[in-house]
């Protein structure tokens, strides 16, 4: 029993947790973009892939991993800003915003994915693990890099929550999410906040890409495999809810990790999807409320 806990269950849970933290980072960007702009960003997974490829390319050029951790999200910011200003805003006021922006970002994702395949080739690549080795805690071997990923990711999430709920900037963001017209009339630069939030969400996806690249491999369609899980987290947690993304991200990845011990990992996706379906039937608004509301 102890052996099972020590050698099977605990490592599996740590693996699930590191995936969970990365999913939360991706889902956080999705949920902020939805909460604020009312836009479903279908290309979010592709931006996660862009982050991973940037880390791969810049790492191969000799840049240090710690530098990449800061540099890649910073590089993603202008990309996101331009996408919001140049593409999203063009259809933002169309009668059916949900569908139109979804279609537009879907097309964008397609273009990004193929562009990555053209530049880097279709094959799977893997950057070296930046932190080697493992520590032993109560007899459980914990890979150092995964522990770092969990700690770092969670601090980023905490920092985001702190900024949104405790600063003046965050108050502007929440105000714009609650009522953009009222916020605009009170002097909040809504257009800038929207573009900034979109860019920030993209940067979070890029950061997740950097963090996960050494663990999972890097390939052009990597975003597509990841995005269903991220969307599930966002829906189960509540579209536009930060706390919801964190809770749902942790719970769903743990369910996936633990269930794959008992059944074939192939069926872990259907299980997560089943939870999504039940959630939509029982509580369609998700676990928590939307950004800017309560």
């Amino acid at each position, binding site marked *: 029993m102890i052996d099972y806990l020590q050698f099977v269950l605990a490592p599996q849970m740590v693996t699930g947790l590191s995936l969970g933290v990365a999913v939360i980072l991706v889902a956080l960007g999705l949920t902020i973009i939805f909460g604020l702009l009312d836009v479903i960003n279908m290309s979010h997974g592709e931006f996660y892939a862009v982050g991973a490829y940037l880390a791969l390319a810049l790492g191969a050029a000799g840049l240090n991993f710690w530098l990449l951790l800061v540099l890649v999200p910073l590089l993603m910011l202008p990309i996101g800003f331009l996408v919001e200003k140049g593409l999203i805003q063009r*259809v933002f006021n169309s009668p059916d915003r949900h569908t139109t922006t979804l279609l537009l970002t879907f*097309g964008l994702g397609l*273009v990004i994915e*193929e562009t990555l395949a053209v530049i880097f080739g279709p094959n799977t690549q893997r950057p070296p693990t930046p932190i080697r080795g493992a520590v032993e805690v109560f007899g459980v071997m914990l890979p150092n890099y995964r522990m770092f990923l969990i700690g770092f990711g969670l601090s980023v999430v905490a920092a985001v929550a702190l900024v949104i709920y405790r600063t003046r900037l965050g108050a502007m963001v929440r105000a714009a999410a609650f009522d953009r017209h009222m916020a605009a009339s009170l002097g909040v630069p809504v257009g800038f906040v929207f573009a900034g939030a979109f860019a920030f969400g993209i940067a979070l996806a890029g950061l997740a890409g950097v963090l996960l690249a050494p663990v999972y491999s890097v390939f052009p369609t990597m975003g597509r495999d990841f995005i269903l899980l991220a969307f599930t987290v966002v829906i189960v947690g509540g579209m536009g809810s930060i706390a919801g993304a964190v809770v749902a991200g942790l719970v769903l990845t743990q369910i996936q990790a633990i269930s794959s011990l008992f059944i074939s990992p*192939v069926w872990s996706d259907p299980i997560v999807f089943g939870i999504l379906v039940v959630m*939509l039937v029982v509580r369609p608004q998700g676990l928590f409320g939307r950004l800017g509301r309560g």
Partner: protein
Amino acid sequence: MVEAATGPVADPARGARPIDRIGLAMRASHLLALLLLAGCLVFALVAWRTGDVFYLRLATEALIFAGLALSVDILLGYTGLLSLGQALYFGLGAYMSAVLLRSGWSFAGVMAAVLLGATVVSFLGGLIVSRVRGVYFALITFGMAQVAAKAVYNTRELGASDGLIGVPIVKIALGFTTVSSDSPIGFFLFVLGFMVLLYLALSYLLDTPFGRILIAIRSNERRVPFLGYQPQRARLCAYVAAGIVAALSGALYPMLRGFVSPELMSFTTSGNAVITVVTGGAGTLVGALYGSVILTALRSVIGSWTSHHLIVIGLIFMAVVIFFPRGLIGVIRARLESWLVRRRTR
């Protein structure tokens, strides 16, 4: 997209006699469909005279995928629901057809079984998805198709990642003649006829009061219950109809290519159908057919000098979404409608 159902518009030239906008749009669609049919027949004649096989097969495939696009159009163009997983039913039809053909079923038997299977599966799926709309509908259809594709991908009985190969040639008895699925010209004409029938059936269905409810849901779902209709039930029916259309089209695929692969169920296939409908013009039915033909031609042309044709297709698609949200046929049909009105009033 479909014009908002604002009710009959008074025709100034004829005083009180109203113009049925939706009926007019449907007539314009029929004219365009007739044009496409003529174009296909000319193409068939030329291909037959020159003894071409490759382009006939490609055109047949374009028509089969046009069926999938039609099914997306019922949902997106008429009911206002974006399905990102319609390939689920296309794949269902294709796999059922491949499995049954391999065990020696006849064409009629296969199509009947696919019809039944698609009705049952899309009804069950519809019970889930008709509860939601908007982005939730898009995401849940996406998820459902992903899970199904993954399940097929990992089922050894269905050939797993390799798919099923060696689907036998099928003889289609039409009463007056028999078409063999390995005859390029014969099967092309058969699929063309099949798609014409699907198109006519759907344009009839969408012209019934049921079709008008769907259009009403697209325009303003909240008002529909006040008229005494249940949007959820209508959404379920639309979803089942779309599932059947997609599955019947999918059933033709293994007859053409002799194999099925999990790719048919993948997001790429669903996404392509959405691109086809939006580029061709959502809510026009005929736009789905034109879109499929044009995009297949484009893919084949671009594909001859680069394997990364998706970049070009994706950019075209984005440009259409931004600049021509009504799509190619949507723009053309609007012109055609005003021409029809002018001709009537003259």
